[in-house]
């Protein structure tokens, strides 16, 4: 895979309705995003694509987290 700009957000959420709303909100603002409905899918993505922030909503909304990620080559 050729080198590309890091993705701004990876959003993990098993509620696809919520995922869709968040996607729409962020992409309209010009952010690059990836989505995953499971952590295993997220792991696959993190292993191959540089990601700046991880937004994990897969447990409870109250526990939603935004984690700054390492931007090095072996990120995440």
């Amino acid at each position, binding site marked *: *895979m*050729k080198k*590309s700009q890091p*993705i701004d957000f990876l959003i993990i959420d098993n509620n*696809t*309705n919520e*995922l*869709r709303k968040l*996607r*729409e909100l*962020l*992409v*309209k*603002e*010009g*952010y*690059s*995003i*990836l*989505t995953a*409905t499971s952590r295993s*899918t997220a792991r*696959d*993505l993190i292993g*191959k*694509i540089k990601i700046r922030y991880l937004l994990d909503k897969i447990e409870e909304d109250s526990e939603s987290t935004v984690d700054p990620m390492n931007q090095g080559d072996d990120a995440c």
Partner: protein
Amino acid sequence: MTQSQTDKVPVSKKIDEIISAFTKDFLELANHTKNDPALASRVQKVFISILGYFRGLQADFVIMEKNHPSENRQLEILLEEKRRLETLYTTGIYFLSEMEMKKLLEKALDTVVNELKADEGFIVLTDDQLNFENIVTKNMDDNVHHSAKEMSTSVIKNALQRLKPVKFDDLKTENDFAQQNSVISLGLKSTICVPLISGKVVFGAVYLDRRQKENPFTESDLKYLISFAKQIVKGIEISEEIQTLENELQSDLTVKFKELRNSFFSGDIIGRSRKLYEVLRVSEKVSKTNVNLLILGENGTGKDLLAQAIHLNSPRKSKPFIAINCGAIPADLLESELFGYESGAFTGATKSKPGRLELAEGGTIFLDEIGEMSQNLQAKLLRVIQTHEIERLGSTNTRKIDVRFISATNKNLTEMIENREFREDLYYRLKVIEIKLSPLRERKEDIELLVEYFMEKYSLDDEQHFFTAEAMNVLEEYGWPGNIRELENVVQRCIVLAKAKEIDVDDLPPEIIEVRSEEVAIKPGLTLQEAEHEFRKMYVLKTLRKFSTKSEAAKALGVNRTHFYKLLSQLDIPY
């Protein structure tokens, strides 16, 4: 027997019935007169005499019926004529809506063979020298193909040389054909052949044959075939015209795009839509000038790529292209970034630094998200544009600069002016020329090319992925609020997660698929007419993808080919 059924019985048959009844009565009478031989003899003479009269009458009626068909028979003939005319009319409509020549010929032959109850048929298309170019056959047995073809070839050539319809009732009696293998081995009896001619142009011929001696083609059959041939000719002419038009239109935009791309280098701006063509055409024109540009468009539409392309195609291309995102830098920092500063201008300014405007000397400065710029800075920028002079922060020296300004925004600047959030005078200074980049949902015809481009970008060298037609449909139907950037991210995600080379609907982000199933991806806020336009475009594109030919797509949409091409043009879909 009903009255109408009785009417249909020929008179000769009725006489048979009368004779039968009369004979029965005579036998009864003979039984009563058996004791009176003289009376019996007289009755017998009367019976023979009456019988003779009826037989004579019957013979006359048989001749009359043969020479003059009954009214019912005439009605039957008229009804048959009407039915044939209806077939001719409906097939004529079909021919006008059939865009592909081969299908048109197949349908025509199928109809005419069934209609005229022929055993087999051909339609041949010829070149200028009357050589056969294209042959469509019906009911042709492969085992006898050669000899039959040889014979029919002779008949067709005969018709083409004379440029007149030909009809042979019994080929065995025709000197030219009697000894031919197919006439003998296949028992071919009757043939008709009509040249397909329009003015002085010969397209070919339609040929039919029958093998039953008792049922040769009639003059009425030949007349029907002549009328039918005219329909075929009309269909061929329109098919050729449409094909020419299609090629011209397709090559027209393709050629224009190619020429434009040669004169305006824009390799990273992917697409083939008419909207993109218009944007690049204007960009090519303005790239040669020094006028300030304002690029409008939603996030992810490629405003920065366009600005860069305009710079690279301008006389300033050897000078710097400096891009600065006015929304990404805090207002205080933006001022020092743009204008530079002298040492000691503020705390931490240990040494002098040139601003971006200065660094762009001789080249182009790209002010992205110009709508985010503070009012204070807007005033300073206006002065720079008017005077072409800058002052570094903390300096009283003015410096002359020669910079071209390209600005971009996704905001509605006129609304911001009304709300006093953006300076009107600056707005008019920045937008000497305004270029609007369409959102991706308005140029869905570019999605396929963009997907290919991103797949090429992100696929591993040894593994080329591809999207199934169904997955591509989903991508085309989705609204893409994040435009090309969002599409790029989705393609990248699919390639990373793909378990096989084929990327199907299940491999797409689920929230995109759900949008598709729940609602049509048409943005809110459109007028009914605009929404209808969007829907029609989406639906036509979907149909085009589903079918392998435009002809099939047109048929599925229930429109004829002329209408279909008008539709493609109206919806800005490349042919």
